[in-house]
């Protein structure tokens, strides 16, 4: 039993096609899992099921031993937060301060406590000087950090990042990834939904979804040894690993260089 367990999960919208089929996944506290999949593989649907925004057709999800049901979805949200793709769609406050407060307001945190927490978590994400700013004065990366501060203030155990960096410029994106790394080192459990393998390389464990099913899962070096799996799942390998296989195919043997190319993709 992990902290988050998904057992025989099936999901479909009203149409006939099953979006997720027999998903089994167990996530321990403190882990960093990347869920990688092509467009339409069902990865964002899975994220929505885990936070109770959608209800499974079959199967169960348990968080910290408690079944996720419509009646206790608010309790579960105290344990799992989610950061979405588009920073503009999740900025709900008029100012940064209001935005960080939003999640806590739903949890009936006292006013004094809330103000303290806003300051604390804004400082934590490095945005303490922006509390009175409006969203239009922030970059995409800054908005995503505010979204994270709002979730951290709710003191959840898990944060799901649902393609949270895909709309960011390269600078903000690298910054956000480094920041997530810090949070993980502090013990937060991370579920990262992405179709970018370079980003997935930060994780401890990789789950590959293909057409609604878990196609492969395991540690990253093991999966990277099977380029055919990535091809089958309509995914790309990291550039350094692509070069590695390309050199190998051309009959080139240089052990040191090969080791370097592998290290390049695992040094995240």
């Amino acid at each position, binding site marked *: 039993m992990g902290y988050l367990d998904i057992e025989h999960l099936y999901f479909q919208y009203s*149409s006939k096609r099953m979006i997720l089929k027999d998903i089994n996944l167990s996530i321990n506290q403190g882990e960093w899992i990347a869920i990688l*999949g*092509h*467009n*339409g593989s069902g990865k964002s649907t899975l994220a929505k099921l885990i936070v109770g925004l959608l209800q499974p057709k079959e199967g169960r999800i348990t968080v910290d031993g408690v079944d996720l049901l419509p009646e206790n979805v608010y309790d579960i949200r105290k344990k799992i937060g989610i950061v979405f*793709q588009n*920073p503009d769609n999740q900025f709900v406050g*008029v100012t940064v301060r209001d935005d960080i407060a939003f999640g806590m307001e739903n949890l009936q945190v006292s006013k004094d406590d809330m103000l303290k927490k806003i300051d604390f978590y804004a400082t934590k994400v490095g945005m303490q000087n922006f509390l009175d700013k*409006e969203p*239009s*004065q*922030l*970059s*995409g*990366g800054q908005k995503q950090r505010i979204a994270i501060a709002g979730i951290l203030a709710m003191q959840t155990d898990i944060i799901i990042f649902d*393609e949270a960096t*895909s*709309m*960011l*410029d*390269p*600078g*903000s*994106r*690298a910054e956000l990834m480094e920041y997530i790394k810090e949070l993980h080192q502090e013990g937060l459990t991370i579920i990262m939904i992405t*179709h*970018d*393998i*370079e980003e997935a390389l930060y994780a401890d464990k990789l789950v590959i979804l293909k057409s609604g099913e878990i196609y492969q899962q395991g540690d990253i070096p093991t999966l990277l040894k099977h380029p055919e799996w990535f091809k089958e799942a*309509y*995914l*790309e390998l*990291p*550039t*350094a690993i*692509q*070069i590695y296989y*390309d*050199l190998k195919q*051309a009959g*080139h043997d*240089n052990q*040191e*260089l090969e080791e*370097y*190319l592998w290290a*390049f993709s695992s040094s995240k």
Partner: protein
Amino acid sequence: MGIQFKQVNFSYTGMQKGYYEAIKDISLSIESKNEFITLVGQTGSGKSTLAQHMNALVFPTSGTLEIFGKKVTSKRDRHIKYNDIRQKVGLVFQFPEYQLFEETVEKDIMFGPLNFHKTEEEAKVLAKKALQMVGLNDNYLNRNPFNLSGGEKKRVSIAGILALDPEVLVLDEPTSGLDPKGKRQLMDLFKSIQEETGKSIIVITHDMDLVYEYAKRVLVLDKGNLVFDGSPEVLFRMNDLSKFHLDYPQTIRVLKGINERFNLSIDIYQKTVHDATAAIKRGLNS
């Protein structure tokens, strides 16, 4: 002809603290034919605002814009038909797939041409042609756009703009939300449209790998200023792109790492994995 910016400024009026300058003193010329431009820069650097000027969707606060011979300034001129500009320069918004609304793909694509006073028959012909241009066959005409995949929806919405037969096509982050394969397919599509029709294409993106592989010309915006206008080859030879919140393409990063680690002098400026591999082989043999 084409699009000329002359010292164009644009300011948004904020809710508090006065205004905020989105683009500053932009002077720039875009040819009406054969351009393949990528527009890059930090989120909030003014890319979308610049793109929205290109078809007179927004008007400069100061400075002059000339779009296919028509002058656009801060004051609306009632003698100018701004709609003509919008036919010459087609703008595809971010997440255009959210704007599909008709019950069939055909009707959705016909919407633009009908608005521009084409007859029902003409619009049908244009829709069919536009759908072919985005690589979807006639079977899609009667399908419901809501049942299509994300990539297909994007193609249908791009077809909706292509059906107006614009001379210049401007796309605001068309690849966002697509997986790597989808991104590449869409960029290949733009490249083939560009080569076959000669239309100029301008793409906003954050993906440096795509910039390096596809662009003939790159515009870099930083806090509203145009700080670079040139080829990707020149851009990625510059030091310290992080000051513009940009990064280097993966091939360059890997090859640079190899040179440093093994004290080699491989030519690091390679656009594809195959070229990178070939360069490594040459570097090791010399």
